[in-house]
């Protein structure tokens, strides 16, 4: 399994897209953190809540990682490399597991980079501005840890979607539409019949609950539901891949 995870790393770093993803995370998180600092009221600076908001800017890494997760699988079909991949590793479930493990590692790395970038942007801005510096304590460390886990779950969620859908266009567009449109639509419809709470169990909202951005579940429940979705999608994807004909 170590070899398969290492092979995923080689695949990732030997195309130009890898640098693009890293730059996207740096740019989006940097802009997000700058926007948070620049838009803060003077009274908010130096508070624990403000530090929380700065760390939240790193959540964009999770979105990028989800896309990387989808593309890491669907590009195998798009470019026909899946044939060679399954010739080297005919037990296909092992390939899916390796991709899940690899994306979890990448997600953790990118989320940490994003957190560092968000903190650095805020610290530098505040010091130049002469404003009170960022307050970081144990609760912020716990929150940062949760954001890393959110990115890991989003990444694994992406691999599951990619394995199940396989068409790159449908998987990427479908995931975006699902999170931005379908879940909100379902929430709206269920709220009309006083059952809006059910929508909190949808994957995007469960992950939001876990990340503490929105959603009606507790942090723990959100994490459990999101992990359940990740496992279910991964298992379904692995089942599909293990049974399908290649070529």
């Amino acid at each position, binding site marked *: 399994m170590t070899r398969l995870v290492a*092979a995923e790393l*080689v695949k990732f770093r*030997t195309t130009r897209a890898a640098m693009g993803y890293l730059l996207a995370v740096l740019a989006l998180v940097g802009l997000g953190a700058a926007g948070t600092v620049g838009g803060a009221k003077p009274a908010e600076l130096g508070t624990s809540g403000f530090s929380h908001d700065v760390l939240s800017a790193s959540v964009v890494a999770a979105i990028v990682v989800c896309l990387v997760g989808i593309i890491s699988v669907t*590009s195998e079909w798009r*470019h026909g490399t899946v*044939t*060679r991949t399954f010739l080297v590793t*005919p*037990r296909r479930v092992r390939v899916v597991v390796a991709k899940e493990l690899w994306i979890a590692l990448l997600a953790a790395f990118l989320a940490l980079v994003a957190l560092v970038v968000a903190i650095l942007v805020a610290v530098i801005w505040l010091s130049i501005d002469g404003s009170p510096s960022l307050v970081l304590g144990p609760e912020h460390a716990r929150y940062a840890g949760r954001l890393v886990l959110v990115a890991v779950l989003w990444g694994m969620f992406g691999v599951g979607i990619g394995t199940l859908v396989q068409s790159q266009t449908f998987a990427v567009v479908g995931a975006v539409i699902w999170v931005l449109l379908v879940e909100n639509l379902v929430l709206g419809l269920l709220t009309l019949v006083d059952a809006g709470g059910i929508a909190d169990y949808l994957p995007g909202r469960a992950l939001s609950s876990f990340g503490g951005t929105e959603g009606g579940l507790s942090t723990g429940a959100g994490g459990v539901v999101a992990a359940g979705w990740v496992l279910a999608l991964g298992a379904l994807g692995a089942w599909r891949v293990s049974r399908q004909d*290649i070529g």
Partner: protein
Amino acid sequence: MIEVAGLTKRYGSVLAVDDLSFVARPGLVTGFLGPNGAGKSTTLRAILGLVRPDSGGTSILGRRYRDLEAPIHAVGAVLEAGDAHPGRSGRNHLRTLATAAGVSRGRVEEVLELVELTGAARRRAKGYSLGMRQRLGLAAGLLGDPQVLVLDEPANGLDPQGIRWLRDLLRSLAAEGRTVLVSSHVLAEVAQTVDEVVIIRHGRLVRHGKLADIQALTAGSTIVRSPDAAKLVELVGHADVERMSDGRLAISLPPERVGELAAANGVVLHELTVERGTLEDVFLELTGGDDPT
């Protein structure tokens, strides 16, 4: 050794492979021929565990592909040109496979050298010609120094020099005791490369045997040069006789019969040779004239 036993595969209403059985043995290059849509690629993919048979099965070295301990060391496969990511260099493509299979980087350089791609190894695969992509596919297939090779149309896109190189490579690999199963539509090339031939049509086995035996299946002609050609034509009666531009006769009788007739009637012969049918003749005869692709 590759064994295909009662392999059947259906795609919806299309029966791609129908109860197909044959064996490709070590030390031989076995040609796998059939018209377009005959089921060659499906069969090769079933052998390699990429396609699930509806019934029957396949084995390599006595085991199903997916049950092989280290598939890349047992079987080298070349199925399609262009199974590399277009944005990845040839060398990095091989390195991803080598990493997954536990093959050393030194071996990557060896196979690049073997397929004469070292000079282009840093270039991204999307800039490769079809012939270069074929060579890269071969390099990937040879990465594990396998005992068995399965190749689907490996000569596609190769120039004449490349085809000769491929022919020599396959012959040398077979001479080392490896099993080589190769599908091709270039029948002239196959005839120069293979020891045995498996011909399928509509997913069913039409003929399997040694190349020479298969070629002998066509009637062929007996070529005769004689100063008394007119008398010989009378003697062979209603057999088909064609007078060639150089004055020789092509007679559709076995050489033994022509020789006996000439001797019994005192006809002097200056030449008596046999012209066998080509593999293409046999192929067209056995497959009803379908295109050999």
